[in-house]
């Protein structure tokens, strides 16, 4: 028993927290990916995650701690917001920047508004009983890695399954081909008989579901409560991570894990009570993201039709 054990304990708690912190960001990043792959920038993501967190929390609370119902409801709320975005950006071809920002302000305000109506001004924020961890048989016995990767709550595993599934869908199925064609060249897609509007709508609804899910993960598995400002800009971070991940699911996941690791690191440091203002630690993930964006900027290749509305008439 010595300093090694202490370091190992720190590493395990840090890295397993990294995975947990990354999960909602993985959902958000993959969700945003489905928007940008078909050519729609979703700046509503920050508000969408907040509304997912709120709806997930409220539904869980109302249904007597039914977490899965909460998660699904959080996802559906995300889909509904993306549906509004789809109507504005896909059907009407309106400015995606302004629509997205409007949606973020709207969702953020609406979430806090609903919280005040439904919960009021409690002295202590009401909490929910979160997911219990699931130890994957055999794998969780692997030294170190086992306790980091295979003793997590079920939604964490779902996130990784979604990444694998997305990579498969996008690059191995005809649906993925349609999505990518619409994102790269909508006119060619239309000529080839693909319904550009339908593909965009479906991709956005599914992406919105994942973003809402990522939000509900924050209230249901990280904070176990709905706290004002709980996303702290993590939705915006997802936008950066899609760029860092070069619009590919696995790379996006790695980018999200990178961010989650730094995020968990600053949280661990805060817990160690070292003599530094905690805000200096809070800044770390944001600074790291900007530096990463600068380093990655040279190879950034966004889908060709990103931000460009498609109108058949013209």
């Amino acid at each position, binding site marked *: 028993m010595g300093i090694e054990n202490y370091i190992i304990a720190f590493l395990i708690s840090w890295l397993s927290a990294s995975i947990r912190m990354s999960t909602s960001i993985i959902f958000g990043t993959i969700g945003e990916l489905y928007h940008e792959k078909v050519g729609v920038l979703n700046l509503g993501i920050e508000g969408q995650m907040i509304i997912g967190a709120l709806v997930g929390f409220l539904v869980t609370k109302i249904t007597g701690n039914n977490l899965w119902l909460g998660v699904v409801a959080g996802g559906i709320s995300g889909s509904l917001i993306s549906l509004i975005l789809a109507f504005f950006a896909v059907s009407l071809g309106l400015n995606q920047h302004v629509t997205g*920002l409007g949606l973020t302000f*709207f969702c953020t*305000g609406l979430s806090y508004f609903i919280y005040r109506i439904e919960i009021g001004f409690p002295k202590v924020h009401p909490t929910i009983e979160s997911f219990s961890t699931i130890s994957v048989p055999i794998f969780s016995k692997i030294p170190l890695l086992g306790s980091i990767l295979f003793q997590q709550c079920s939604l964490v595993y779902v996130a990784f399954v979604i990444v694998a599934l997305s990579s498969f869908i996008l690059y191995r199925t005809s649906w993925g081909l349609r999505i990518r064609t619409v994102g790269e060249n909508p006119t060619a897609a239309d000529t080839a008989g693909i319904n550009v509007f339908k593909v965009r709508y479906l991709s956005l609804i599914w992406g919105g579901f994942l973003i809402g899910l990522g939000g509900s993960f924050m209230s249901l598995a990280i904070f176990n409560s709905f706290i004002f400002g709980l996303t702290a*800009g993590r939705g*915006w*971070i997802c936008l950066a991570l899609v760029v860092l991940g070069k619009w590919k699911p696995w790379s996006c996941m790695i980018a999200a894990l990178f961010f989650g690791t730094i995020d968990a690191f600053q949280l661990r440091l805060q817990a160690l009570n070292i003599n530094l203002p905690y805000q200096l630690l809070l800044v770390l993930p944001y600074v790291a993201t*900007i530096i990463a964006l600068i380093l990655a*900027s040279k190879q*950034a290749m966004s889908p060709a039709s990103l931000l460009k509305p498609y109108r058949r008439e013209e």
Partner: protein
Amino acid sequence: MKIALKRRSPLSWWGKILLPIGAILISVIFSSLLIIWAKGNVVEAWYYIFVGSLGSRFTFLETLIKMTPLIFTGLAASIAFKAKFWNIGAEGQLYAGAFAAAALGILPLNMPSYLHIPLILIGGFIAGGALAFLPGYLKVKYKVDEIVCTILLNYIVIYLLGALLDGPWRDLKSGWPHSPIIHESAKLPILASRSRFHLGVVLAFIAVAIVYVLMEKTIFGYQIKIIGSNPSAAYFGGIPLYRTIVLLSFISGGLAGLAGVCEVCAIQYYLVNDLSPGYGFFGIAVAMLANMNPIGVVFSAFYFAVIITGSQVMSRMTGVPIYLNEIIQGIALLSMVLMLLFDRYKVQIKL
């Protein structure tokens, strides 16, 4: 249902004025539904919003005071958006300006007011400008997306100021996390008795005039418009893209910085972490509702000042959550972008 859009020539000037009015009407109707949901009385709620912001000399002047930072951040957003430079960082730039104002205001410079105040205005402009210059530079030099960059800088600046206010700048007398109080010579003069109506309100109107001239009467303003409406024409037309974007981002951030200067030197007299109730973000809606027109910014800033001031009174009197004003901000953006469709298109809905 099928929606068909037919291009047509842009609306005349009076048609353009109807667009923001339509957007305001939509946001009023929608927020009234939310007031009903919150079990508030709609008529009573709007009564308190208007009486609370315009009902007396004092509240009217308070609304003008709230309008001041909104004009600055609205101008900041409107010139940036005109060039499709999506500066979402006005909130952080406001705090950078506020930081410079507090730093220069605390220094024992022993200057007369007529030197100290201009020094602070220049310092605040440069601080806000520098913070926006960075994403501008990163965009043209490294193609880093300015939206993400400006948003992340908001968080960075606000956290760093928090560290400063909790640490070296903590006011020892009160123990509250705010900076020491600025010197008398740094305070903006009050222009009307029994109120907080200060010089900054006048400065905001001067800024509107300057930005109007800059955008409408100079080559720089013309270049900004070309970059925004047709980047490839700008490129082949020999417009110095690089220099124009960087300079534009600096001016945009500087204007937002002046909003912070006013809040420190005329309202709080020190720097605090909750200096701004989101003026930087409201600036986006102000600019959009004005359709990026500097003169229009005055009117839309006034509208949002009414909403911000009035909704505080409304919330206190009726119990409808204060977050209604953020929702109104969001709906105003959404409905304005919808209304702008009618500027260029004939919309036909076939059932």
